């Protein structure tokens, strides 16, 4: 994955912490703004664009949901 270790839950929590300036205790649920932020940082980290649809994003309610969708999209991009 372009020299990057696999994306883990801890990475997403750390990214959310950058957004909220709140180092720990991130809420489990994420909204559209947090999601846009995560997509942006994951794309920068992996230096590629995630090919996502609105339906995929609409199905994301939690950090764990996001992790599954991002991992799938990154694996697809690795093809």
């Amino acid at each position, binding site marked *: 994955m372009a020299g990057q270790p696999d994306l883990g839950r801890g990475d997403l929590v750390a990214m959310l912490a950058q957004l909220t300036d709140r180092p720990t205790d991130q*809420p489990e*649920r994420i909204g559209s703004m947090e999601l846009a932020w995560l997509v942006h940082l994951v*794309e920068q980290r992996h230096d590629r664009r995630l090919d996502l649809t609105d339906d995929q994003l609409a199905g994301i309610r939690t950090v764990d949901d996001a992790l599954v969708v991002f991992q799938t999209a990154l694996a697809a991009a690795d093809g």
Partner: protein
Amino acid sequence: MNGNPSSRDSNAIDPDWVDDFLFTGKPTDVCLRLPDPVDRGTLHRLVAEAQTRLGAAGLRPGGAVALRLPPSLAYVVNLLATWRSGAQAILLDHRLTDHEADRALRRLTPQVVVAPVRTGGAALRVFVEVTEGVTPYGDRPAATDHAVVQLSSGSTGPSKVIGRTAADLVAEVRRYTQLDGVALPGERLILLPSMVHVLGLVGGLLYGLHAGVELVPPERLSGAAVLDAIGAADSPATVLGVPFHIGLLAATQLDRPLPMFARMITGGELVSAATVRSFTDRFGVPLGNMYGMTEVGVIGTDLHGRHRPGIVPAPGIEVREVAGELRVSCPASPYLGGADPSRWSSGWLHTRDAGTVDPDSGLVTIRGRLDSQVSVGGMKVDLTEVENTVAELPGVAAAVVVWDDGITAYVQPAGTLAEETLDHQLAERLASYKRPRTLRLLDQLPRTTTGKLVRSVDTLRTAGTS
């Protein structure tokens, strides 16, 4: 009012302002880049065609159209077509749930509803590809002569309804033209806020059309896409956004020089000095901010970032402080329905923002809210509305909703209640941006000795983790 009374209702709005004030300039001038250019002539033709569809669905001058569309060409076209038909536009955020939208429609009784039948494009679009459906709804005239009606999260449950006349919108656009530090004719506005809300609607769409500023929504909501939009032409580009977008840009690797990047302006809450520094260090352009409300539009600005945290009242706007609350000149009450003297009285809007006005410089400083309203990505959300919605759900005995770096709900169930059930019910009743980020189910909510619910964030946090 002229015309046949049977086909023209008493509140018909003079439609001429659309052509006289917004469609100025040459037909070949590009007004939107999506990214394909849309010129004024094309937009005007699309608007005329949409008027025919709205009329066929039952719209009459003096009626109202509810637009339940995401930011899109379809939204722009149907909005202008509504006004050009002498009708009122009711703007419903497309993220409202059916429950919220139905309640608004029953209250506002438009003649026609415009909503998507199909949306396309990839995720995180700022501007969406929409095929719209035009549906007859009612046959009553609009309740008022306002050109635009918007909902704002209300403090007592249902949303409060705000109306603005065409004259008021024109006056606000003229205020923008008098500000030093906005995009000028021939320049570009990289538009991030939704055109359904006041900043994107008036500061973006209407100002852009009137002043001859190209409106450029980035291809999608990402830092790279914003930089691409800035770099797509040589003419000066102003980025209009909310504080979230500053962070997004500051976290983006700059891979090329962008000499055309002129400035960024944000509405919404004030950003921290550290955020300002990280943005200006990276891009070397001014970061300005604006203060405004749905009720009156732009109230004050600091477009060069020289007065932070103060702002200068916009031309023609007076701001004064009464008992710690900022009041803004507003000749007529912007609220539909019964007058509420605690919100507007004698030509002054009671903002419910705490603040001060410096007697010497006239600079206004905002110091937070005096009520339970919070800002989520630039969207105003009243925590009381969220709390009432949670408390009224089946299976909920009591609820307290507070702001704790995000909307946080503490819920005391009546019997057994799964968090998932609660989540599901809330998703049916509240738009996504209003929903709690954190839900905590407690056997007993903390109460005072007299039995009142405790609202202290610290006490609730402790109760939620014990």
